[in-house]
């Protein structure tokens, strides 16, 4: 299989790392070669964070280049827009409609862009959802990451049960129930 490229973008602290770990652990079960490039350190303090996940028969570079992402999983609208040039022609962008103001907007030096979803639709196929509300309904605001994984899982071609098994082995026991609910909420939108 040719390599599949997934990019996960968001704001430091939103839990993108867990999303990439669930994804990584799930695709290795399918027997693929996998590389995941994570972000640790400074950007996790509320900055833009980007994680790449690639799988296929043989993966070399752990990073995804511009015009190469099959799927972008965006935790926040502005970060979805920032990642837009990375989308492959005909690619899909799953976006949580949450907006988090970055410091330049807060201090009035820049404006938060408007009409992001329609701009994104020029680049590819947009799936927009309010993952924050779905996470809250599932019992924890922090489960936005697993809601989004649920959305991605639906069209992944990987069986539902495999995703559930992976969540069970990746997520700490005490958050399992909430996360399974959150996954279903995303899976069933």
């Amino acid at each position: 299989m040719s390599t599949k490229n997934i990019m996960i973008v968001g704001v430091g602290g939103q839990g993108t790392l867990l999303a990439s770990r669930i994804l990584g652990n799930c695709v290795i079960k399918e027997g693929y070669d996998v590389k995941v490039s994570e972000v640790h350190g400074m950007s996790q303090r509320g900055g833009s964070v980007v994680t790449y996940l690639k799988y296929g028969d043989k993966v070399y570079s752990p990073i995804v280049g511009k015009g190469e992402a099959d799927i972008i999983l965006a935790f926040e609208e502005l970060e979805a827009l920032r990642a837009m040039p990375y989308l492959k022609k005909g690619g899909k962008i799953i976006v949580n409609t949450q907006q988090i103001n970055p410091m330049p907007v807060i201090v009035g030096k820049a404006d938060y862009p408007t009409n992001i979803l329609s701009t994104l639709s020029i680049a590819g196929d947009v799936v927009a959802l309010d993952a924050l509300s779905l996470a809250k309904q599932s019992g924890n605001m922090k489960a936005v990451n697993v809601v989004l994984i649920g959305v991605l899982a639906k069209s992944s071609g990987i069986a539902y049960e495999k995703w559930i098994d992976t969540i069970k082995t990746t997520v700490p026991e005490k958050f399992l129930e909430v996360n399974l609910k959150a996954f279903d909420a995303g899976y069933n939108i």
Partner: protein
Amino acid sequence: MKKLMLGNAAVAQGAFEAGVNLVSSYPGTPSTEITENIVKYPEIFVEWAPNEKVAAEVAIGASIAGGRAMSCCKHVGLNVMADPVFTVSYIGANGGLVFAVADDPGMHSSQNEQDSRHYAKASKTMMLEPSDSMECKEFTKQAFALSEQFDIPVFVRLTTRVSHSQSLVEICERENVPVKDYVKDVSKNVMMPANAIKRHVYVEERHQKLVTYAENCNLNTVEDNGSKIGVICAGIDYQYAKEALLDKVNYLKLAMVYPLPEKLIKDFASKCDKVYVIEELDPFIEEHCKALGVNVIGKEAFTMLGEYTPEMIAKAVLNEDGKERVELSAPIPARPPVLCPGCPHRATFYVLKKLGLTVSGDIGCYTLGAIAPLDSVDTTICMGASVSAAHGMAKVRGEQFNKKLVSVIGDSTFIHSGITGLIDIVYNKGANTVIILDNSITGMTGHQDNPTTGKTIRGELTKQVNLITLCKSVGVDRVVVCDPFDVKQFEKVVREETNADEPSVIIAQRPCALLKSVKYEGKCVITDKCRKCKLCMKLGCPAISVDKDGVVKIDASQCNGCGLCIGVCPFSAIEKE
């Protein structure tokens, strides 16, 4: 069994399999998770040392005593540990001695972009560079074996994309490597001139043996695809090149980046019309090739700055354009990192800015106090420099300047190398004010314990360095502890201490908001008492913003309920929900 593993976790696994006995490190992105992963193995003695120099020396002692030992740091940490490293090159290794050092091309989390490979050359040691997690594990194991074989400390060099990428690793059992005998050997282990002169001869002879080894070892590999274009590379650049160029070129992949082979490079180049050296940062391999008289293309085609990408390589070597894409039609706001909601440092900088002080800054989460709207930090150099540089500033600009000057330094950074600067101030009759930002943890690198937290890396209780008695014991008579969230009191303390004619230390004490033990009840909300004065906006809290109609709002998904804004609001317009 194959496992998806972070490069750093794979280095830890490699050390474990090699039978390592001791690991001593100081944290630093992107190297931190190596040592954190060592904690998984109960067989290994592991510790956070106060700084990299101490960590390296602990590992050196363990090696001399016959154990296998490792010390891990980020590139700038290697500057701190350089002193023992250069001399242990002469001493060599009894038990295998490995230094894992992680560079940060692109400066994701660093204050400079230095290239550690120069250190291997300057110290006449050996350096291996893996390109994925499997190699991280294998090369670390090899490094221990080579260290003992050649009686030499060996570096494993990583870069952010290798350290922080996960790929598949085959897991093996731990080798049973007994601790070697310790035999007193003054000529080898006491580096005073008479002995060191002889050891230098040994070092030069050893170097020649290493060059021969580099020619023939199975670490460096040639991949001949019958092309007329050759590529020489190492580490992550190999993965980028493979992705960009596939089998359209021949590869010389160097696993050993120091010493570099000579004949191998010449032979490889002689079969190609054109040879590229692809290496992020400095022209280290390129200069070696050029010195050998091999005509390679290096920095003429590639930048010295930042990280490379497969796209850049395809363009430079094959003149291929990147993939089709939709670019942004207008610039969009950047999202720099910020102090977290509830961060105790925010209150400190709010006060320092209000008082208009010059702030000699340091490295840690609090470096973010340099960003608007807090923008209070004047300088950031390296760990510890906030204290010592402020002493220099005060000495050239005089007393009045010093009364408007403070140093800010985190608890971990103060122990790392701030205490020596403070001793200098006391000894050389300074009158500086040093603010220790004591948030009960090493924050920036992701919550490591340190000597001031009272816990070891394994979470065991231990003696806790008392910052008050420490500062007093070096001769600072004025030491005040204050919670920066008590903004009024904190402001008063800063005014008093900066006005004093003697050295003073303010310990700004409040734990990091991300610690599990820190729980603030409820969320802050703005009531209709708000008069839109926007004083709360001066805090630079990511949860507070003003909407298009000028209404101040608190985003509940961002607020952690710390309540700092409640205390700052002059109209009592902010309440807990």
